[in-house]
């Protein structure tokens, strides 16, 4: 019972904090017209954020220790090459993920 109340409190606190963070830019600019700098950022931030997210996803890769990040490197290389050549998102993701899953089991 106590445990249930604790979890409900945890969910409430985490949800509210996550919501405030997500709503922050919207709360900040309300319904006012957007400043030019923010319009500019809205255009250039997506590629920057996505680049950071890729690195963030790979942050746990340990290149100083066996298997030296080889599965990540090989899978990412395959994804980039496939995407440039075939331009098929599903193919790139499926082949890349499958390669990664196989590599972490065999090396």
């Amino acid at each position: 019972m106590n445990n249930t109340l604790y979890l409900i409190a945890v969910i409430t606190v985490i949800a509210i904090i996550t919501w405030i963070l997500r709503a922050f830019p919207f709360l900040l600019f309300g319904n006012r017209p957007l400043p030019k700098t923010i319009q500019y950022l809205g255009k250039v931030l997506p590629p920057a954020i996505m680049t950071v997210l890729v690195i963030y996803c790979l942050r746990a890769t340990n290149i100083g220790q066996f298997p030296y990040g080889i599965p990540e490197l090989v899978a990412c290389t395959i994804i980039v090459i496939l995407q440039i050549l075939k331009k098929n998102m599903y193919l790139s993701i499926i082949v890349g993920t499958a390669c990664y899953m196989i590599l972490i089991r065999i090396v």
Partner: protein
Amino acid sequence: MKEFRFAVKNTIPIFFTYLFIGIAFGILMSDAGYSILLTTASSLFIFAGSMQLVMVPMMTSGASLPSLAFMAFFINARHIFYGIGFIEKFRRMGWRYPYMILTLTDETYSVLCSVQYEADLDEDKAAFLIAMLDHSYWVFGSFIGACAGRFLQFDIHGIEFSATAFFLVVVVNQWQQYRSKLPFLTAAACALGFYLLLGKEYFLIPTMITCLTALILLRRPIEMREGIRNE
């Protein structure tokens, strides 16, 4: 209906990621002794994958509410930056506006900023369905994990890489769309620099702040390259 099919098609990679990470979360919660109802509720209301995975061991060790709150802030602070590109788009969306804001996860963000809407689609409706489908995959995955987790025996370790793969595909596409490569290079330089300096746990927020500042300073060359006129 067109919009629904379009949204399904564009969220397939997220379906796999969310379903399996959701199942992993559900299993963790059921092993920790929490009910199916509350497990599903946390996915419905929080909808932040990495934070939810971190909160389970923290709760098991009886972490205090302030320390969980701090952790939530720390892990999810990156979301502050996501809304910036969508302020005008979401504002137009009427009753869907709050929902779009509160469900803006890494994955939904990356779909929304890379998707190419077909000409005959209601864009706002399609964007809303994308957000809603992603959210439902996550809730559904957690529910499955909470119900049947211990009976699922197949080894799906590594499936979480599909999120990385998806983000990488988005970057490749953007690289071909943007004439100025400075946003990518700035971001990569900041991320790698802070990664080496601060380590994998702490590099994200300084990276975002530095990158944002650098991009503001680089506005002139980037806009010239992208062909945006300054009046």
